[in-house]
């Protein structure tokens, strides 16, 4: 049977319990939001195939239980993942502080060159916000990881986040391929686009003025 995709990327969602990992995944895979989600026990994944610069990319996105106690089990699933979303909840200071621990956790358990991205979720709940967008950006600069605030509920930046991460992985992969096979270097058709977060109005929508 012919493959229905050009690439398969394994992505992983990690972060404290209750930051909205499952909601983000549900938003991305089903474009829906459910107010009464249940906590994730163990591990699960969802699939969505996207078109990325003319290539069909199948994203296999793994959703993990957030509580620290289960890490010994969940880290077993880090292996082979090519991109990791580190999620915190902008209304929960602790979940933000823990991002550093999660990064350490990745360093110990995932491959060294895994692509990462930090997501500050629940940015629709402005009244309850405890972590400013600036602090999120600062952390991202510190670790040289891309960052975006998201809202799974309002479908804000969720698409953007996954596309960006997928794009980065694809770029890295193609770079490797070209390096190993310079004769077959591609023409300019698949040149990478500017990867900076787009400075559009919808990005700044959640900033506190």
């Amino acid at each position, binding site marked *: 049977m012919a493959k229905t995709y050009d690439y398969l990327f394994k992505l992983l969602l990690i972060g404290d*319990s*209750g930051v909205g990992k499952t909601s983000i995944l549900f938003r991305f895979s*089903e*474009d*829906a*939001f*459910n*107010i*009464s*989600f*249940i*906590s994730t*026990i*163990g*591990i*699960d*994944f969802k699939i969505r195939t*996207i*078109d*990325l*610069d003319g290539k069909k990319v199948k994203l*296999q996105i793994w959703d993990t*239980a*957030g*509580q620290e*106690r*289960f890490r*010994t*089990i969940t880290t*077993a*699933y880090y292996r082979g993942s090519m991109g990791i979303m580190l999620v915190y909840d902008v209304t*929960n200071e*602790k979940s933000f502080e823990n991002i550093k621990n999660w990064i350490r956790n990745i360093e110990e358990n995932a491959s060294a060159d895994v692509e990462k991205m930090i997501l500050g979720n629940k*940015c*629709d709940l*402005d009244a309850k916000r405890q972590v400013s967008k600036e602090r999120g950006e600062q952390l991202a600069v510190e670790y040289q990881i891309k960052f975006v605030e998201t*809202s799974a*509920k*309002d*479908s*804000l*930046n969720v*698409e*953007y986040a996954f*596309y960006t991460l997928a794009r980065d992985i694809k770029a890295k992969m193609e770079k490797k391929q070209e390096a190993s096979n310079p004769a077959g270097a591609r023409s300019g058709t698949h040149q990478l*686009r500017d990867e900076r977060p*787009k400075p*559009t*109005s*919808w990005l700044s*929508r*959640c*900033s*506190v*003025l």
Partner: protein
Amino acid sequence: MSCSSVEDLPEQCKDLFTQDGVLLKASLGRPISDLNSIGMLCIVQNMDGSKCIEWRPNDLITIDSDTQDQEWAVVNTIGRRQRTLSGNMTSDYEAARARIIRIPLDELKSFKVSRNNQQMQFSTKQGVWQNTCYFQHGNAEIFLSYLKNHVKTAKTRHDRNTYVVVEPNAECQVLNKSFAELDIFTENTTDVVWNLVSNFKQRPYETTMEAFSKLTDIVYYGEGVNGKREMSDEVADLLTKSMSALEDTTSITRSEEYEVINVKPTLPPRPSIPREALNSRGTPLSTEKWDGLQDPEGRITEVEGVKQLIFRGGVAHSIYFQHPVWVKNIFERIAPFMFKVEGTPLSTEKWDGLQDPEGRITEVEGVKQLIFRGGVAHSIRHSVWKYLLDYYPWKMTKTELKSLHKKRTEEYFSMKLQWRSMTEGQELRFSEYRDRKSLVEKDVNRTDRTHPFFAGDNNPNLIVLQDILMTYVMYNFDLGYVQGMSDILAPLLLLLGNEVDSFWCFVGFMEKISSNFDMDQAGMKQQLLNLQQLMAFITPDLAKHLASKDSGNMYFCFRWLLVWFKREFSHRDIMRLWEVLWTGLPCANFHLLICVAILDAEKDVLISKDYGFTEVLKHVNDLSMCLDVDIILSTAEGIYHQIVSSPHLSDQIRLILGLPLAPKPEVPEPEPTTFSNGNDRGETEEVTLEYNGHEISVVTKTVWALLA
């Protein structure tokens, strides 16, 4: 700056579920210009608690569709979901708001899913589809499943994709009244009744059977019954169907009106075994027949005849336990679950009869056997569970129990006071406590919220759930709160309804499974390893397949084990499964054999489709709510008997199941055509097991007397 535009609407309502990418294809009374636009389909709760389906056009929240998104436009035609506030919010916005479509759920009459999950139609008037929505992602089934959480529905006779809303209000009042009159429940709360109503919906047959004898009178001879009943009278109709199915068990009573009834009463289909065999089964092979089949030397000549008999009706218990080796031979030929011996639930009468005049229960093992066989009748669960969960000691008199209850109540409230009296300042300086509290809060808010008992905002049961879990943190601060505990507690609270009782039963349950929540997860890892060893022994081909697919560690069973299958079954089924497991019969770690039984049933799929690491996990996760508790229990029991009658049993397996280590003297396999009588080999009538340091006689005369 406010960041969400939907919240800016004057109507203070809450989105319970939202589905984007929904096109409004047709809507009666709307200008054509309003149609064919993309929007969001929601289930919304209004301020007054009423709910409605709402479709909102996307341009209510203006979309940036031009410049910024171009490179993705190619990629994903439905990708333009980003909404901004950059558009002007004046006249366009007002116009868009006027285009919102609202269908109050109490006016919704029917709905229909068609075109391969791409289309949904709604009707508030018989025979007219007022609104048609097109799901761009082709995932209408997701919306459907959430909608079904909020309205009671029945499928229609003509079209299996059309659902008729069973009017909630009037109907339920009548039902509540009927149930109250029937006095089925010891605690006649609305929640219990609701639980039953929802069970009717989910598992009509079983639920019906439970209330059957009492309800018969009401349905057939009660007031207001004249001729044909209303289509919307779902429960009564289900009863009628079930009854006609019962009256003629051999004929296949098919009803297209309610799909659920299409499932035959006793067992759902299982590929290799013809189910008719169980339905039309004869009487079990009895001891008398068995004796008559042997020649004077104890040989059995009519082997095929015996097999036929067993295939029809199974084996009587007495033979079953006397001839483990012989039974094993048959196991290899006929599926294990043919040996299922059906029991009836422990009834009120039996339970009352088991207590001595002072209220002590002396025949503990007998009671456990009965429960293991047939579960507990729902009406006495609240009482029996307290014993099974070691809250009430079996041998205590009623007077002693009364004072114990008083003592435990005081104890509970003093522990509750410990955390309730903590000041804000204390909390601020007590991060470990704070973390636990926040975890509990998060999980309570997402525990079984679709169940009527826990649904809705400010549901008082959620506060009780939280209070118990917080008090447990004080009871066992080292363990604290771990995810999964709220899942364990919810069915206990749902059944017992009482805070103190639920707490102590929860404590008892946690005693049994506390190693699941070890900080280092050693308990879970040990169980996964044990499961792997059992698999290798019982289904070596599947174990081999899993090992070759990097799944040998059995991590995909993690959820099953952590919360004892809570996420895999409905509340009703989990109660049945748990009470069987609490008996500790027939061996230690029987829950691992439940895992083996489930996986064994999936073996063909997993191997023939050559499922790999990810597919195995997906397949196993997707089994949730698709499992039949009775089949699984009997298969697991069959596997247990397979194991104990195996002549070559490693100490490893014995240790896992708590079987005695000393190997019995080798018994030569009987000739295929000759079955010797088990008594010749000195088999005892009792199989003695060791579990938790106690010796358990599995087969006692008392038990047989009770079963008879």
